[in-house]
């Protein structure tokens, strides 16, 4: 456990001190502040505009943080051969992978926390309730979705041979993760059998990131989000993360350097 913690601390430190990451965080804060300007466009429901835009920005920048943090890792491990230095040390390969995952999601958490704080200040300025449980739940589930994506990113990094190919794969997963549910609805009602099989395959393989999007439900008439739905999403995330990390550890264990 201490070795997993050591790796996660190292990855977090390394990512967070990186200049490009610092610039990304500054952009993220600006994006959160931009919601202030967006809300001015709305004559009514300014708070809703702030929340909508902020949630979108938080998820987008969390995704960019995963991409950047992992790109730094993959580049250093493969091109600068830093991995060899660690793999000869007394650490299990699975411990290294889990530490790396923890380091990446910790970096994302820090970034998301900064953006959430900015969003809460703006909501307060606009006269809303920054501690609204629905808003905080929406942010938390958005973060959970990115944790699922980070686990898939780690799995893809074990099978990708270059940084560009990994970036392409994970961007595709991110895009498809938001689109599959819409695609499925579309083909279920109109497309032929072959197309339906292909879309079903993608639907079940690629993580359904739309499940974590509670944005639409914040202003629903019903009180809190349905507990059954939240439990289902939590279970889905746990399953997806476990399967992805197990597969990543298994593949990484067989790798040569």
């Amino acid at each position, binding site marked *: 456990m*201490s070795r997993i913690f*050591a790796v996660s601390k190292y990855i977090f430190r390394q990512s967070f001190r990186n200049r490009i990451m610092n610039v990304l965080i500054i952009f993220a804060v600006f994006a959160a502040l931009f919601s202030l300007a967006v809300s001015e466009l709305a004559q009514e429901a300014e708070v809703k505009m702030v929340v909508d835009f902020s949630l979108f920005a938080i998820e987008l920048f969390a995704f960019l943080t995963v991409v950047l943090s992992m790109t730094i890792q993959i580049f250093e491990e493969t091109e600068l051969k830093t991995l*060899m230095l660690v*793999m000869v*040390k*007394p650490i299990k390969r699975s411990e290294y992978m889990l530490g790396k995952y923890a380091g990446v999601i910790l970096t994302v958490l820090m970034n998301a926390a900064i953006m959430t704080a900015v969003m809460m200040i703006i909501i307060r300025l606009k006269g809303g309730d920054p501690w609204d449980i629905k808003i905080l739940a929406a942010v938390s589930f958005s973060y959970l979705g990115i944790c699922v994506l980070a686990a898939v990113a780690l799995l893809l990094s074990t099978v990708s041979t270059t940084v560009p190919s990994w970036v392409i794969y994970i961007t595709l997963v991110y895009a498809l993760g938001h689109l599959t549910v819409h695609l499925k609805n579309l083909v279920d009602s109109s497309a032929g059998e072959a197309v339906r099989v292909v879309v079903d395959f993608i639907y079940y393989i690629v993580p359904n990131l739309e499940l974590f999007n509670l944005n639409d439900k914040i202003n629903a008439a019903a009180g809190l989000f349905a507990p059954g739905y939240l439990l289902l999403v939590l279970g889905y995330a746990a399953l997806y993360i476990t399967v992805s990390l197990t597969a990543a550890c298994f593949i990484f264990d067989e790798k040569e*350097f």
Partner: protein
Amino acid sequence: METVIEVKKATKIYRPLDFWKNDRTTGIENVDLAVYRGEVFGLLGLNGAGKTTLMKVLLGLLKPTSGEVAILGGTTNDIAVRSRIGYLPELPYFPKYLKVKEVLEYFADIFGIPRGAQRKKIGDILETVKLSDKADSRVGGLSKGMQGRLGLAQAILNEPDLLFLDEPMSGLDPLGYKETRDIIIDIHKQGKTIFFNSHILGEVEKVCDRVSVMHRSHLIDIQPLSAIMEKYGSLEKYFVGTVTEGAKI
């Protein structure tokens, strides 16, 4: 004499880069080798001879296609064995935004050195590699020679019984050569075993007890340095002669 590295008929054949091709490359072939406790063992060879492949097979970074490899009486799959070895790769890289002591703290954590003991341990190691005044400096601000010494520091952090050095003089200036050599001699005096891979014959001559030559994936000769010096007068003469002879393979 106790054997710390034992290799029997080790062969490593790399898989083709593209699965539809059949261009397999042989990294090492039928290598037999024994390295004994307390010696400095030098591995020489031309570029592409198989030196790095052999070192990676010994370290467990590559799995041999056939043959056996034993390190410190076990295999490098065993964490207990890995906790007793040190490794310095050629031109080691460390994240430039981290401080020197943070890099060593990371490796100390992996080695399981208790937090309370880390400060003194890291201080001593930095003293050994003459980087004490750089403990709080970022790696990005270090010269290439200093980064090499930081590499050496992480390799000896766990006081290894067996130390692998892959081109430890690479990128160093003449003063760096001397400082690194002094450290290697110091470690040797403590009774540690060193497996040393270098192109710089003058340095090999100054630190090694036995020398081997790899050529075209084969280990073609192993000799005590004293015997080489007696017969050939210089390591260079021996190396050139052995490689030329080996070219007939």
